[in-house]
């Protein structure tokens, strides 16, 4: 089993009201220094090792993202990386 991450973001030219709402909320809460926020989707897939990169690209570009409005990145994460960073831990 491999862990595959697909991150999807609205294309830069498309208005991202969610990101903007977050950016505005930061202002209201007195958080300084954040110039811009964009919000997208984060998928974590558990995938058989045999599945080739091309197939992962196809899944991302035909199902997980809509090429009309979104961009995406696919990456396989190693086990080590998966446990170190990509399994989010709760941060108090």
């Amino acid at each position, binding site marked *: 089993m491999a862990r595959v991450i697909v991150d999807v973001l609205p294309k830069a030219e498309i208005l991202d009201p969610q990101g903007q709402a977050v950016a505005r909320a930061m202002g209201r809460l007195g958080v300084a220094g954040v110039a811009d926020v964009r919000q997208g989707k984060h998928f974590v897939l558990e995938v058989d090792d045999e599945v080739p990169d091309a197939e992962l690209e196809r899944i991302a570009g035909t199902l997980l993202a809509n090429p009309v409005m979104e961009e995406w990145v696919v990456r396989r994460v190693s086990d080590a990386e*998966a*446990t*170190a*960073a990509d399994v*989010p*831990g709760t*941060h*108090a």
Partner: protein
Amino acid sequence: MTAQAASAGSPAPEPAPEPADTVEVAVATPEREQPYAALGLRDEEYARIREILGRRPTDAELAMYSVMWSEHCSYKSSKVHLRRFGETTTDEMRAHLLAGIGENAGVVDVGDGWAVTFKIESHNHPSYVEPHQGAATGVGGIVRDIMAMGARPVAVMDGLRVGPLDAPDTARVLPGVVSGVGFYGNCLGLPNLGGEVVFDPTYAGNPLVNALCVGVLRTEDLHLAFASGVGNKIVLFGARTGLDGIGGVSVLASETFTGSAGGGGHKKLPSVQVGDPFAEKVLIECCLELYRDGLVVGIQDLGGAGLSCATSELASAGSGGMDVDLDAVHLRAKDMTPAEILSSESQERMCAVVTPENVDAFMAVCERWDVTATVIGEVTDGENLRITAGGNVVVDVPPRTVAHDGPVYSRPLARPDSQDELQARTTAGLARPSSPADLAATIERLAASPQLASRAWVTEQYDRYVRGNTAAATPADAGVLRLDESSDRGIALAIDCNARFCLLDPREGARLALAESVRNVAAAGARPVAVSDCLNFGSPEDPGVIWQFSEAVDGLAQGCVELGVPVTGGNVSFYNQTGTTAILPTPVVGVLGLVEDVHHAVPHGFGPDGDAVWLLGE
């Protein structure tokens, strides 16, 4: 930069769970200490369980009794008072009831072979913890109650009470609750017919989310929950069972797991339940197809208390016993103990009783809707509910003792001393506007008050058109719904409560809530026929609160007699308080009315120019 991440990513190895506590083990180890107090059972309640069983309960049995004997499920503090609704209902008031108090929801015969069922339920505490999901799952729960009557859910309403608009937490709670109600109801395709939004400081740490659902059925489809017929199969269908809502029962795990409190042996328990309205929508359509094809003998929704409640209620309402095998239950989490499976409150599940020859057809309908379904047991000719796990008997109990014979308390009640002083403070001494400018300012203040301002911000987030039968919704005083396109028959619904009146005088306040709700329904051109209530109060262990509760029940019962409409069901929510401060006594009253012809329902607001305006009454 994320130091904690590394440790979170490498959990301590989980110790293997000890074998489940079986009936055999329980018999052999009568002295084993059990954490009944942590599960909310009092000494005498635990003793009572041991007496019923003639031995100590197993962990799984203890989990079942503790949840089923909780205030929420057993109504142990309210039962003695709620009885008065039944006692004051005359045969005449009951004439059109096909089912009343005690069923999942009251059912009213509306003629031409149609029946209507409706009920209000609260989801207060979860909506404080996570407003969006709490409110969403509240809607989901009441909708399943209505489905369990054999009805198609056709509309919802919501009564919301939160802290003052400018209280800091209201900005978190109110938008979340509204989006949750909308998210779930919209996604189910249930038009929202109306509701309330009320602000008061006592709700700041304890918002009230009361959801009403109404359903329509053909009288012959009325499905009451029971499991008669030896050999009939018990089918669990819908979502998989996870660790949702078993916080209390986890104390059992910490007893049997080697890990100490807070140690590595603990499972992570979800602190909120996430609603999946899509799963519920599919479940609704699946159930309706099952009813239509005559494949269901009895049915029960899984709400609070999950399988504990469904199996014990189905079994005790039937004539025989029941065997259930927990190994057949589809699980979402690993290594769940029998106690956890029985207590899980995972949403979007139902439990049906099906004759053996219909099981294949039942499964085919579930397959058509992509609904997971499994036979988990059958009706036996025995007397007990017997539950096995891993081949061992972990529960062997008379089902009625779990579902119906819980403790009943007459809690001490006392009119609070403060009541006189409260009533003495009348409006007599309050300043009146003395000049036109004062008057204008007062009107402006009223218009700008959150209590009176437009509710469009809320109601615009709710679909009121879906299914094309809504004849009136916001801003009308009562929602009006056509029952079916093929007939002009309709219903009207309103929910109301002025809790400040109830604080001043709970008896009169409850009568007034009823009167207002009845007036709203009548003003829509409907004949009021039935009441469902949601009684939201503070702690029943406070004699003053129980006094409020008792007074409110009396007032409501009395008003129902006066107006000739019966209470058909409802819900009690106690322990609504922040610290020791109780919420305002809030008996929310929902009234159902019948409209002969929806085309003649009376619209809200003034009619065309030239119409005369009449004021009726004193």
